[in-house]
């Protein structure tokens, strides 16, 4: 077994170790903490590159999948087995997670410069990176679930990093509870899956739960077993990846520091749901209904979140809804059978969304934590580097031709179109939703860029904004580079011979057939995007960018805008139904406990004890006390006679002891002779 597979555990272990050590640091140890965490991450990144290189080298003409399994502990005949797997999927995720994490760690040095809890922040970040990397390489249901919960925990900690803000505290709780709802389903699904397959390992030399032997068992069972397990697991993915109806936590999670939003709530952790579906793809393929559900949920989320994003004012919230929408795209891609397309979108999205978030972080940092885009404006001259990189990110997100987003989105649309063509009828919904979503994405990104960078500065803070430090710009540039060029990895066949070869496809799934690219879809999506950008450009300029001016859309369709701005009142709906119901139940239980249980048990038992004690007192006073007094006085009379021996002088005792020893000695002599 190659070295890198056996030592794959080092990749998550290093950040964990760094987190552990950093946790012991005092607040003043800022520089050592940053060095330690970034250093550990850099090593993890190098190891991830090694892993990637190993997969690349071994992967010619076939896919490599190597697992390193071991027994954690055994009880009786069964054992809990854990393991790590190195395959193209985990190698790709390792690269993305460690690369983006590394850059964002570096960015954080600049961004969190003035925060007094700098070391705590890095400790949490490192904890997150470790658990995410562990999640990616897990080859066991149990390990996957542990890492899954750990990323949830670190996300919770980081959202509430500024827990003195009530909104942050609320957001952290919301995120935790909402994802927990999904995780319950996930957990039940895991247990069910374990029961059916009898192994916790995914890949175990033919005996793993995701390998054909065991999947064949499940498929042979028939009924809804496979579908149920898949959908239960998908619940977890929905929670983590913010799919409708569990998307509500993700926009609120933007209360955390911006690097956290970029790392966890845009690039990596929220993609864990997509990754999960990708990892479980063989299971989902057993029953087509499961994948179809994924596709519809994804398609709906993609469109739904994109509409909300059009009417938001907070720079980070726009990006958050955009993230939800893009995650929907990935789910859509996976659901319509585009395994590679969905994951490729995950890959490119990680770069440009991290770039956008970091760019917004740079802007927010420069504008003294102002997040309302109505109060920004005209930043393109004051922050040129940020502007350029931000535009690159926005174009990539919108899907304009040479940028990364174009290729991945196009591939998803292509797969959706094939899906529609194959099934017909309602199956064309994903494709249509995807196309409309693409339009809306390009539109709201144009709106945001115009609001932020063009026009005049609309607040005092913005007027004095200055370009950020190189700690922050460096990662922006690196991510910008990736946003431009990462897409070429998925350059479709036959368009340009020399780049040729859909590299990414061959890497991830060489044995899977790729659909031939369709020029019509490329042209169509490009046209849609360009029209959207043009519309956005036209609508948001001139008077619309003046200080105090409302959104032109609001003026035109106030009712619609209000619905969108209030996110379709989903939160309010939840508050009126689920939350209200929970409260009512709690109140009822409280009443029962307090007034009914107390009355019966507490007062009843207290009365019984009181009566018993009265009886006891009677016996005590009459019978026992008198007898004791009599005995004591007898003793006292006897003791008077013994007092002369014990006069209390210690030397007196000692002398008696010495004399006794001599007497005993003499006695022994007399008797012994």
């Amino acid at each position, binding site marked *: 077994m190659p070295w890198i597979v056996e030592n794959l555990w080092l990749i998550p272990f290093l950040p964990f170790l760094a987190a552990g050590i950093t946790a012991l640091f005092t607040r003043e140890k800022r520089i050592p903490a940053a060095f330690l965490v970034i250093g550990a991450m850099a090593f993890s990144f190098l190891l991830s590159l090694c892993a990637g290189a190993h997969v690349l080298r071994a992967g010619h003409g076939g896919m490599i999948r190597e697992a390193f399994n071991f027994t954690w502990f055994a009880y009786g005949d069964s054992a809990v087995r854990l393991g790590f797997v190195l395959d193209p999927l985990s190698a790709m995720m390792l690269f993305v997670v460690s690369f983006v994490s590394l850059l964002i760690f570096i960015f954080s040095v600049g961004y969190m410069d003035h925060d007094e809890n700098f070391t705590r922040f890095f400790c949490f970040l490192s904890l997150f990176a470790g658990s995410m990397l562990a999640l990616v390489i897990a080859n066991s249901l149990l390990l996957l679930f542990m890492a899954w919960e750990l990323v949830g925990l670190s996300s919770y900690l980081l959202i509430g990093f500024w827990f003195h803000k009530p909104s942050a505290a609320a957001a952290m709780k919301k995120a935790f509870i909402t994802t927990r709802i999904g995780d319950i389903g996930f957990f039940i699904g895991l247990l069910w899956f374990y029961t059916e397959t009898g192994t916790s390992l995914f890949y175990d030399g033919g005996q793993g739960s995701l390998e054909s032997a065991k999947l064949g068992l499940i498929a042979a069972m028939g009924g809804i077993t496979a579908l149920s397990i898949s959908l239960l697991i998908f619940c977890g993915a929905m929670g983590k990846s913010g799919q409708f109806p569990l998307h509500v936590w993700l926009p609120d999670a933007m209360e955390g520091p911006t690097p956290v939003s970029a790392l966890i709530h845009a690039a990596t952790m929220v993609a864990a749901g997509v990754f999960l579906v990708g990892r479980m793809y063989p299971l989902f393929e057993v029953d087509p209904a499961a994948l179809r559900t994924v596709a519809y949920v994804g398609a709906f989320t993609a469109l739904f979140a994109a509409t909300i994003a059009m009417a938001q004012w907070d720079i980070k919230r726009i990006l958050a809804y955009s993230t939800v929408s893009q995650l929907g795209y990935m789910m859509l891609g996976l659901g319509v059978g585009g395994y590679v397309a969905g994951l490729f979108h995950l890959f490119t999205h990680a770069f440009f969304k991290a770039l956008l978030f970091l760019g917004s972080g740079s802007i927010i940092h420069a504008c003294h934590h102002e997040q309302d885009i109505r109060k920004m404006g005209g930043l393109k001259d004051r922050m040129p580097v940020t502007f350029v990189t931000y535009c690159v990110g926005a174009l990539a997100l919108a899907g304009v031709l040479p940028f990364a987003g174009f290729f991945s989105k196009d591939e998803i649309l292509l797969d959706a179109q094939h899906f529609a063509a194959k099934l017909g009828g309602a199956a064309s919904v994903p494709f249509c939703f995807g196309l409309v979503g693409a339009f809306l994405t390009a539109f709201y990104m144009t709106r945001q860029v115009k609001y932020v960078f063009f026009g005049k500065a609309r607040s005092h803070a913005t007027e004095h904004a200055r370009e950020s430090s190189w700690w922050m710009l460096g990662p922006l540039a690196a991510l910008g580079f990736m946003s431009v060029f990462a897409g070429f990895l998925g350059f479709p066949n036959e368009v340009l011979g020399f780049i040729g070869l859909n590299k990414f496809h061959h890497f991830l799934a060489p044995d899977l057939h790729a659909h031939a690219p369709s020029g019509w879809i490329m042209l169509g999506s490009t046209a849609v995007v360009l029209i959207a950008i043009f519309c956005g450009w036209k609508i948001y300029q001139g008077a619309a960018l003046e200080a105090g001016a409302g959104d032109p859309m609001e003026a035109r369709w106030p009712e619609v805008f209000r619905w969108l701005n209030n996110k379709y009142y989903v939160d309010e709906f939840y508050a009126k139904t689920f939350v209200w119901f929970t409260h009512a139940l709690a109140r009822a239980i409280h009443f029962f406990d307090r007034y009914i249980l107390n009355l019966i048990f507490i007062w009843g038992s207290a009365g019984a004890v009181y009566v018993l004690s009265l009886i006891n007192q009677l016996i005590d006073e009459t019978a026992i006390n008198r007898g004791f007094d009599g005995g004591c006085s007898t003793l006292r009379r006897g003791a008077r006679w013994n007092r002369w021996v014990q006069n209390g002088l210690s*030397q007196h005792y*000692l*002398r008696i002891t010495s004399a006794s*020893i*001599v007497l005993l*000695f003499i006695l022994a002599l007399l008797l012994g002779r």
Partner: protein
Amino acid sequence: MKFVFYILATWTMTSGLLAVTMRNMMHCAAALIAFFAGIAGIFFSLHADFLGAVQVIVYVGAIAVLILFAIMLTRNLTGQEGVSPFSGGAAWGWAASLAVFCAMYYSLQDHPRCAVIPEASPSLAVDEIGRLLMTRYAVPFEVISLLLTAALVGAVVLALDEPKNKPGLPK
């Protein structure tokens, strides 16, 4: 060698007698230190070097200092004027100790094993002592360490200040 022994014997006996008979407590303590040093010398003369060094460290370095401290803290250096430093019935004490000595001397006199002179004087290296403590005498060693810990805690608790509101306390 006899010469060294007699010097040490005279030294320890004299200092010991002074330590228990002198009126001034501080002089008693000084004599006691001399006594301890003499005992260490006896250990050295018996080729128990390690024990001699331990004797100096523990008795001179620790116990003597403790006694000095106790004398200082009780501030009763010479006793009350005109009151004997010996307690009532001290004569009985002298008599008892003399009787004990007579008994002991009688028993060791003419004992056949007392006249043995070893061919080679034994010696015990320090690492051998350590090995014995960790193997054969491991349990007593642990018990002693427990005892010392208990004594430490006990001494601290005993010497702690009593609550201030009790009568008869120094202000």
